[in-house]
């Protein structure tokens, strides 16, 4: 097993070198294209066959996003009721086998049967970046945001750590760190509990025309990023070629993370370890669909009120005339 220090040093060096060397290369062209593709949401395609589980993406993510990680103040303020859970990952920053406030991407393992052979597949897991993200749309304070390029992120300066985003996320992606953020300046005893953290798809790199670190450092080119429609076309072409399966296109009404697998996702879902910080690969209905339908009813509601008022007037006039 390689030491983390050397690997980190390698990744940092790779990213720095890549930044200076790649001008004129495919990556630079892709980055330029991303800047110019602001009108259409971006999606990533993950070809599960290619992933070798080397975790370069995991460490690259940790390195480039280290400045965004929480530095909680201790001791934590007392919260009421006393049973409100404190969630502290600050002493477990090295954990990389699940999602935490300090680890926004991890590798899931699945032992499955492929062409009659027992095979171990590895799957990079992080936020799916839903097309209509419940974490963003249902955040009570607007602390979770969705950019025009489709990525969703949580503003650490605004988040109060209520964990609603995690509760409404079909994959329970965001993770909380207590003792950090705006709630400390408000009423830490009575409201709030820290800040929620998750993959922000390297929004600050995208703004500069760079691609997310996990994509850039992958030695196997597992991930491809581009306009969602093109990515979907690529995904279906690939799935057809390998007689494979697509995940993320329709889940929760559609996401900006599209997986292509050589084995059905229900098999993968059965094979992966699921639980806290380890999201499933199950089918997900559109969690925002009922709200969208009721929004339509809100448009009809004034007509119903109007009809009732005129109906009453009509009946009363009829009564008077008779």
């Amino acid at each position: 097993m390689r030491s983390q220090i050397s690997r980190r040093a390698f990744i940092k060096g790779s990213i720095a070198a890549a930044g200076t060397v790649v001008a004129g290369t495919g990556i630079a062209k892709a980055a330029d294209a991303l800047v110019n593709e602001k009108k259409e949401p971006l999606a990533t395609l993950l070809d599960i066959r290619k992933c070798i589980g080397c975790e370069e993406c995991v460490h690259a993510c940790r390195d480039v996003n280290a400045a965004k990680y929480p530095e909680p103040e201790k001791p934590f303020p007392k919260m009421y009721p006393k049973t409100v859970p404190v969630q502290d990952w600050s002493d477990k920053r090295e954990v990389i086998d699940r999602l935490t406030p300090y680890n926004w991407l991890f590798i899931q393992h699945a032992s499955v049967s492929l062409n009659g052979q027992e095979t171990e597949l590895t799957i990079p897991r992080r936020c799916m970046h839903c097309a209509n993200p419940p974490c963003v749309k249902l955040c009570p304070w607007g602390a979770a945001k969705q950019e025009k390029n489709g990525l969703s992120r949580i503003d650490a300066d605004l988040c109060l750590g209520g964990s609603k985003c995690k509760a409404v996320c079909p994959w329970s992606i965001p993770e909380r760190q207590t003792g950090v953020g705006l709630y400390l300046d408000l009423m830490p005893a009575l409201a709030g509990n820290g800040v929620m953290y998750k993959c922000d798809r390297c929004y600050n790199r995208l703004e500069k025309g760079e691609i997310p670190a996990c994509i850039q450092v992958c030695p196997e080119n597992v991930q491809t990023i581009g306009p969602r429609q093109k990515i979907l076309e690529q995904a279906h072409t690939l799935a057809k070629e390998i007689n494979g399966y697509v995940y993320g296109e329709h889940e929760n009404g559609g996401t900006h993370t599209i997986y292509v697998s050589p084995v059905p996702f229900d098999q993968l879902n059965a094979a992966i370890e699921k639980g806290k910080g380890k999201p499933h690969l199950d089918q997900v209905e559109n969690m925002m669909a009922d709200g969208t339908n009721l929004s339509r009813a809100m448009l009809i509601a004034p007509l119903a009120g109007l009809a009732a008022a005129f109906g009453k007037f009509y009946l009363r006039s009829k009564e008077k005339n008779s």
Partner: protein
Amino acid sequence: MKSKGKIRSYIYGLILFLITLSGFGQMPIFSRYYIASIPGLGWLGEFYTTHILHYASAVGLIALAVYVLFDFVIQGAGVKRITGSGYLKMGIIAGLIISGGLMAVKNLPGIYWDHTAVIVLDLTHLGFCMALLMVSLYTLILKKTWVR
């Protein structure tokens, strides 16, 4: 007539209760304070349930508001009969409906609004809600009516 007015008041009271309860349910407070742990109130801690109830109550509130408004206009009851607190509550409810309607639009797929605008909208809606609660409490205690 009076009984019909009473029914309308009860419907308004029921909608106001449900929309306020489900509105507060949009914030993660019922689980934190173990209100959702009280038998029968578990649904208060389920965000999608309170979200749907809030929207459904909003449909009822919008329909009722338009009905009352046009019923009043068609009857020719005269705006002079409306009390000061009645005007105040009308204004607040209009603000709630407009800001809430905009929030419903914001929640539709493919809608990307400026982040600051979303925060302002959230706080405006909450502000109107608190104002309506306070004014309603005031009119309830002092038995102030909508019309003279």
